[in-house]
């Protein structure tokens, strides 16, 4: 039996999927594990629901389907995902290119059955595949903490620092550890972040200024002063000209 979770902001759309799931019960035994009206609700309810397959509408308020799917990959038992869309040329192209499964609304019972069987066998999509399919940068980074996903709004992030295999995410309140590559993060968030060092990206909006240290015997180098945060971050010599340029119009 396949446990299915339904995420769609429109009530009639969720109801229809429930009806269809009942229709295909003999062909594909299933049970509805839970429902959500938007990405944030789905993140709250899905981990405890024990869902194996997620039927996910890509256009939802709060957080769209693709971003939600990316955050879910952090879960221990991440569900397989079948995207559902009424009409979205870009998304459909991205899905086709990345071999991600999707259904077109209005959904047909036979197609739903086939998609469920395929999804249950294939398992959860990889974070890299979803990242490639994504049209826009995420609004949150996520950290998997035991049985839930914690969201860190990108606009609250002061800096990202690579430490060995992990990346430290620092907001004013606390620190998180995520397992993503700094290079990939730099590419995704090239707008709001600037690289100050081989292992550090800083949020432009959080930079208050720069300080020069050293002098005398030691060669002087620059440091970033952050808004409302004590720690100074060193700027590598190589990055300094570029950083100074980019932040010049502050």
């Amino acid at each position, binding site marked *: 039996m396949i446990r299915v979770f339904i995420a769609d*902001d*429109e*009530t*009639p*759309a969720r*109801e*229809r999927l429930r*009806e269809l799931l009942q229709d295909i019960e003999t062909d594909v035994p299933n049970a509805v594990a839970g429902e959500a*009206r*938007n990405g944030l609700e789905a993140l709250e309810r899905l981990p405890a629901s024990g869902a194996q397959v997620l039927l996910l509408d890509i*256009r939802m*308020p*709060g957080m769209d389907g693709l971003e939600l799917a990316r955050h879910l990959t952090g879960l221990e038992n991440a569900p397989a995902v079948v995207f559902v869309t*009424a*009409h*979205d040329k870009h998304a459909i192209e991205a899905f086709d290119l990345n071999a991600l499964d999707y259904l*077109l*609304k*209005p*959904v047909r019972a036979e197609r739903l059955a086939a998609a469920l069987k395929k999804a249950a066998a294939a398992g959860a999509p990889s974070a890299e595949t979803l990242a490639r399919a994504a049209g826009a940068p995420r609004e949150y980074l996520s950290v998997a903490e035991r049985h839930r996903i914690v969201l860190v709004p990108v606009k609250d992030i002061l800096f990202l620092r690579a430490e060995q295999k992990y990346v430290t995410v620092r907001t004013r309140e606390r620190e998180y550890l995520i397992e993503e590559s700094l290079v990939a993060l730099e590419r995704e968030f090239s707008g709001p972040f600037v690289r100050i060092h081989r292992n550090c990206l800083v949020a432009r909006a959080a930079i208050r200024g720069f300080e020069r240290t050293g002098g005398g015997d030691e060669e002087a180098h620059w440091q970033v002063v952050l808004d409302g945060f004590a720690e100074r971050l060193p700027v590598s010599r190589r990055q300094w000209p570029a950083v100074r340029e980019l932040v010049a119009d502050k």
Partner: protein
Amino acid sequence: MPSIRQNAYPDVLPDFRNLAVIARVLLAVNALALAGALYASPNVMAALERFVYVAAFLEPLLLIELIALFALAGVLARLPYWGGCAAVLTAVVLLAGLYHGVVGTVAAAPELLSLMRTLVLTLLVAAFLLVYFRLHTKAFSPALAEARLQALQARIRPHFLFNSLNAVLALIRRDPKRAERSLEDLADLFRTLMADARQFVRLAEEISLLERYAEIEQLRLGDRLRISWELDAAPSDALLPPMVLQPLLENAVYHGVEPGTGAGDVLVRIERRGERVLATIENPYLEKGNQRAGNRMALDNIRERLALFFDAEARLETRIGNGRYRVDIEIPYRK
């Protein structure tokens, strides 16, 4: 039933990058110069001699003018018609003056026309050519206007279509009567979309369309969509182009309600004020909705159609304030 004005195509400057336009200018100016030479000479031979002499002065100037207009074409195209005409005439006359000055100093030709005559002749010829091009465009304009209207025909958003069908399908088993009504509403919506865009429709019909569209959206969104209708003062016999208000309501829902997690209040107000009809459609302004960019095409489309029907008498304005996005339309009251 009154329909679009026949010479309704908006005035545009000739495209100075177009080969046909350039060729016409070359031909016309030379023809005028030849005519002038013929008029001022005792016989054809003398006229040709005179023409060749004038051409020596004229052709380089003509070339310079055309090159200048070619270079400025982009800038000129962005100006309103009469502003553009003034700009063209100014540029042409200035260049002619400069050219005259340079040639006078360099060539020292005794029979050169006085500066004033050069400037006046240039001005007259340029003005004449602008008039010629304007008439030329007008001659083609009814066909152009109709073709344009076909192209501007409002299109239904696939997002709306498929989501509505989906919503109706969801109703079929549990409330078949409501599903029936919704399908009938959809049919009416499509019928209007495919109707002849060149004919005016009565405001009563457009309002009925809005209400049916709203019913379908209500199906999908439930209590996330709250519409207030202020239609008591609406003149039901007023005439307007079809599909002017419905796309605005559709955008209000798509950008102002759907991306929101809570409920959204949409206002539709239509009233008559003297000889004008005013319509307002207002929705919550959501950052995520990206309404300014998303609406631009629809608004340009509506503006152009309003211009085709009412010329300068129609007005469309958007305003953002107090967390609300608002579109105001004003048209003359015609019945």
